[in-house]
């Protein structure tokens, strides 16, 4: 029982860390109505820039993070200006295909410029676990989960309460109508992509510390697909719930089912859940009942 509780705790914290990356998907979907298939690559490239600044130039962590922040802002703006702006008003599938192309480009660009050798981002967080009753908690996961919760609250407020958030949702609903209503669509596109970049940076810092930094870090983006499908592509609360479900399912599968079958179930169990969800409720637990075939 103690082991099961530990697994649930581990899975919950991991799931909240998935949520942080999943937030990038939701952010883009809510503002552009498209899925950003390069979100994992955003995480990878942000982490590689920060780790590269530390390893190559010996910058202190804070300076490296600041450079990473500026890089992701410029990256988001450039992406909006040169890749996505020309697509305003075009079918959503065009934007989706552009993000898929971008993902492959970044996977090649990362090692080409920064090298393929893996490294890590050493955050000033102790490694020693915290024992709390039957729970066994890792400080980095607590920090990662904390960052996720703070950001999810902040974005929840932003989308629901702020004028800019309402405008972004309007842009997502219809580019043409938004423009007709005087909303600067380009600006909100840029804000969305920049913010997705910043979320990716935070995810990259936490996951880069957890699992190291190289192109494989982009795989975290794939892990997040079941999260957003389960929770609902356009729901911030769905991201939290989906993240926790995926994290806990993974942990329990690894702890109880993998030993019985010799391993291998952990990684695809969330995708089984995702397929089941798509069959019975394709818009997710908290998503809008709006289905489009693409």
């Amino acid at each position: 029982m103690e082991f099961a509780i530990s697994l649930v705790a581990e899975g919950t914290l991991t799931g909240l860390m998935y949520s942080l990356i999943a937030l990038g998907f939701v952010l883009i979907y809510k503002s552009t109505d498209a899925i950003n298939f390069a979100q994992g690559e955003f995480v990878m490239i942000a982490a590689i820039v920060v780790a590269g600044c530390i390893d190559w130039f010996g910058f202190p962590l804070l300076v490296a993070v600041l450079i990473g922040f500026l890089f992701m802002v410029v990256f988001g703006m450039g992406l909006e200006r040169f890749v996505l702006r020309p697509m305003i008003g075009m079918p959503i599938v065009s934007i989706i295909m552009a993000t898929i192309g971008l993902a492959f480009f970044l996977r090649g660009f990362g090692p080409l410029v920064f090298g393929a050798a893996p490294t890590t981002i050493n955050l000033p967080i102790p490694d020693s676990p915290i024992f709390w009753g039957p729970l066994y908690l890792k400080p980095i996961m607590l920090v990662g989960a904390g960052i996720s919760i703070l950001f999810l609250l902040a974005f929840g407020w932003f989308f629901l309460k702020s004028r800019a958030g309402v405008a972004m949702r309007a842009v997502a609903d219809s580019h043409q109508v938004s423009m007709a209503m005087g909303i600067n669509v380009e600006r909100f596109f840029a804000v969305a992509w920049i913010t997705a970049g910043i979320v990716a940076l935070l995810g990259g810092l936490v996951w880069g510390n957890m699992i190291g930094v190289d192109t494989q870090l982009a795989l975290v983006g794939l892990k997040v697909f079941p999260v957003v499908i389960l929770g609902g592509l356009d729901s911030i609360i769905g991201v939290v719930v989906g993240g926790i479900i995926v994290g806990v399912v993974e942990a329990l599968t690894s702890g109880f089912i993998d030993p019985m079958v010799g391993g291998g179930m952990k990684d695809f169990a969330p995708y089984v859940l995702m397929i089941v969800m798509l069959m019975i409720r394709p818009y997710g637990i908290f998503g809008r009942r709006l289905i489009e075939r693409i």
Partner: protein
Amino acid sequence: MSYLRTFGLAALATAGLAAAASTAQAKDLIIGMMCDRTGPTAVTGTALCPGYHDYIDLVNSKGGVMGNKIIADEVDIQYKVPPAIEAYQRYKSEGAVLVSPYGTPMTAALIKTMEEDKIAGTTAGFGTAAAANGEKYPYMFPIAASYWSQTAAAIKFAKDKLGGDLKGKKIAYIFYDNPAGREGIPVLEEIQKQEGYELRTFGVPAPGVEAGSQVLDVTRRYRADFVLLHVFGRAPAVVLKELKRAGYPMDHVIGYVWAVSEGDIAAAGGWDVVEGYNTIQFAGVGSDYPVLQEIRDMYKAEGKDEPEAMKYTVYYNRGVFQAAVHVKAIENAVKAKGSADITGTDVRDGMEALHGFTLGGLVPPLEMSRQDHEGGGFVQVFQVQKGKYVPVTDWFRAYRDDVLRLLAAEHQ
């Protein structure tokens, strides 16, 4: 008449000289070398492949193999089977005299084809372990401790660390969940019969970027006495970091040969994180070997600094070792044939003729034969101590009879 005789002799001499010149004409000898500079196991190739090329360059800078230049044709296969098969077809069409596959799945895919094509290959430190039996796999050469030999050595090391008796002890085998990772299991089960330890296996799904719950299981539920770590690519760093976070004693962990590089340690957070970690090596670690000095001198003579990859001595040294074995086998083949017109079969024979090959102490004496394509199966354990690798054993092998029995069973 005298004039005619003189003319005839001169003509014969000219023809003879032309023939001699023809046979002595230098030839490019092609080695098909698969690499993994990108993809999930890039941590290996980014250091190993430069070591390989540097040694080949060193040989060529000294005139090649008896005047024949060695061409190492590299293809980055990204640890994937389809590019490996494509690369092999290219090597075959180029007339490569030797092919160096990379990775157990790729080797498994190519082993029969290479045998049919009579092209020799090496698989230093990875599978298929059964290829150590040269009578069953005549064209494949592990040339270094196979996963079976590594497993046997790891168990022996664990036994020594745990006071000389494994009865009732809990051994955890954390493995990369693919054919390479699973190779150690038969040997663990075989030795278990005589040593009486408890064994549990923990598969880490590829590419191994998360292993938190497996480590939780190893440390909190199973409570292993010793951990054998047979993962590679990104997984070693992740597992090591997780073990550290779980407070598991790192001196009770031993990593197989692809979980032990300086790159893995850097990605795990640095030397302090893995203080005490034991690592199996089949080539020496560090920079103090004559062959490495020769490479540094080569760079110096060219007015260049030594390459960055030389800092990653675990894999760089293995690249040098592999290249040196390849060159030596080709040299043996050229000598035996009397010309550079050698075939894969000649190289196979040249490989089997390797005896007492140590590369200046970088590797244990390699003793190859038709029966033993592994060359002895020796390893050395290095431990992380205060920011560097320190050897804690001599070259050794263990449970050899068990390993050979399993090999014989494969042969039947």
